[in-house]
């Protein structure tokens, strides 16, 4: 009888309401499975970056030309790996937009799952996808003649992966900001543009574009991630760039997330 249940459990529920965990293994597993089912995401983030590398990074002269601790092919490989990671984490973060449009986040609000656990899971899955994307491009690069010292390779991968978290925040921010169900159709071209303007796809020299590039979100990460390979110093500009954009994206994501959980 429900009357009996109400009598016996009501006081207990008030005092001993267990706080739901932030880490949800079943949710994480399910989300990873969904990821593999999404053909568009797989092509976007796991096929496109290595293909770009094969198209732009394997010319004969690149194989012979040195950039410090490796050849130009390795330079293109690291750049494309970072591009893939950025694409993957942005798309992972932006998937909140689709789930809001489908009413899934509303459905989740009817469960004890904490909104913070939802975001944490989304970011974790985005980071897994980012790492996968980096590794795929690395395999393609090393198979096609990229030469890079092991130390430089390890540092570049770690920096690219950690740095792509900034774009998971960017994806979340955009996912909460934009109402569209196909946010990535907007963000894909935007990221390509940012990658050109920020000097991720090719070096920009010393002209006007190089000056503009310092303010582009991809600029700082590109320089920092390539530094182990080129052996060059990391400029203050690059660090300021990454920290500032990270603050903007995380701040924006937190702001929209709070609005969202207050309202939905």
């Amino acid at each position: 009888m429900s009357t009996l249940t109400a009598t016996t459990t009501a006081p207990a529920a008030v005092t001993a309401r267990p706080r739901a965990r932030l880490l949800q293994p079943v949710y994480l597993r399910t989300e990873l499975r969904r990821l593999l089912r999404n053909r568009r995401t797989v092509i976007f983030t796991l096929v496109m970056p290595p293909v770009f590398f094969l198209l732009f990074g394997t010319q004969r002269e690149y194989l012979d030309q040195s950039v410090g601790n490796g050849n130009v092919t390795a330079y293109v490989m690291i750049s494309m790996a970072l591009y893939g990671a950025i694409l993957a984490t942005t798309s992972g973060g932006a998937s909140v937009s689709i789930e809001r449009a489908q009413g899934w986040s509303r459905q989740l609000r009817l469960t004890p799952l904490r909104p913070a656990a939802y975001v944490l899971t989304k970011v974790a899955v985005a980071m897994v996808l980012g790492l996968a994307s980096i590794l795929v491009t690395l395999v393609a690069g090393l198979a096609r003649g990229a030469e890079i010292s092991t130390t430089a390779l390890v540092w570049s991968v770690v920096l690219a992966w950690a740095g792509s978290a900034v774009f998971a925040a960017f994806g979340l921010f955009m996912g909460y900001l934009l109402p569209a169900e196909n946010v990535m159709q907007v963000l894909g071209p935007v990221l390509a543009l940012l990658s050109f303007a920020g000097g991720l796809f090719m070096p920009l020299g010393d002209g006007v574009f190089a000056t503009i590039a310092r303010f582009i979100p991809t600029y700082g990460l590109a320089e920092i991630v390539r530094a182990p390979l080129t052996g060059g110093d990391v400029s203050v500009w690059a660090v300021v760039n990454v920290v500032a954009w990270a603050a903007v994206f995380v701040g924006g994501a937190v702001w929209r997330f709070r609005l969202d959980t207050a309202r939905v």
Partner: protein
Amino acid sequence: MTTTDVLPTPAPSGAVPPALELRGLRKSFTTPAGTVRAVDGLDLTIRPGEVVAFLGPNGAGKTTTIDMVLGLARPDEGSVRVLGLDPAAAIAAGRVSAVMQTGGLLKDLTVRETLALTASFFGSAHDVDDVLVRAGLTDAADRRVGSCSGGQQQRLRFGLALLPDPDLLILDEPTTGMDVGGRRDFWNAIRADAARGRTIVFATHYLEEADAYADRVVLVSHGRVVADGSAAQVKSLASGRVVSAAFRDGAPSDAALAALPGVTEVERRGERVLLRTTASDDVARHLLTRTDATEVEITALGLEDAFLALTGDTTATTTSGSTR
């Protein structure tokens, strides 16, 4: 309090909180067209074990009220207590759950995966297979949600709502868009569940559904409760007929017509007068014998007319779509 109380610890009256208690609830939305008062001073108490229909036309404020009950929206004014708890606490404890109208499902998961995932949020081991049976989903268990029929998706939402084994189950227009067969299957599943003593509140704009499945009908219109009682009581409130007659040489005054037996409403259409009454025979007899009325007609009110009469919302049948 009674001496035959069999509870182990006899509870003083009032110790069992109502399943749902709404006091002076108000909520407005700002739209480009101005401010809309979706809920406008709504009071309601639902006792444990009741099966209640929350009946009203589209736009009566049903969904907005449900959103506030579930903690999905904050009231501008008034209070919501769910089983004596704050809505968020009741949700987190799994004491209340809901079947929403549309959406809320991931198309790329299977039915079983969706249930297993949601069960994991509630922490304890809930039997997904048992819920599959109770929601009538065993055949569709391994089908992707995106390729399920509307009825199957709605039964999945029902299954999700069953997972925490809630004391209070809320359904928001649960059969919208279902065909007759799907609707019957769905209500059979709900009715079987209600037999276990769960408190059930369902919003609907079908009077037939309210009549067939609820012990109690709460009629809402323009964000307020306008009638509250058993299905039979609410129906009898709406019962009545329309007597109409033509007056060639001028009709009696409104006041005189309104004073006729059981007349609740007087309407003039050209030389015809329409009288809504609960005593149609008496009115017709009076008109034919005491006045020069001609072409007297008596028509019974359909359920829809009765519904409109009670909610006073003539736009109910023409509005459709969103019911926020």
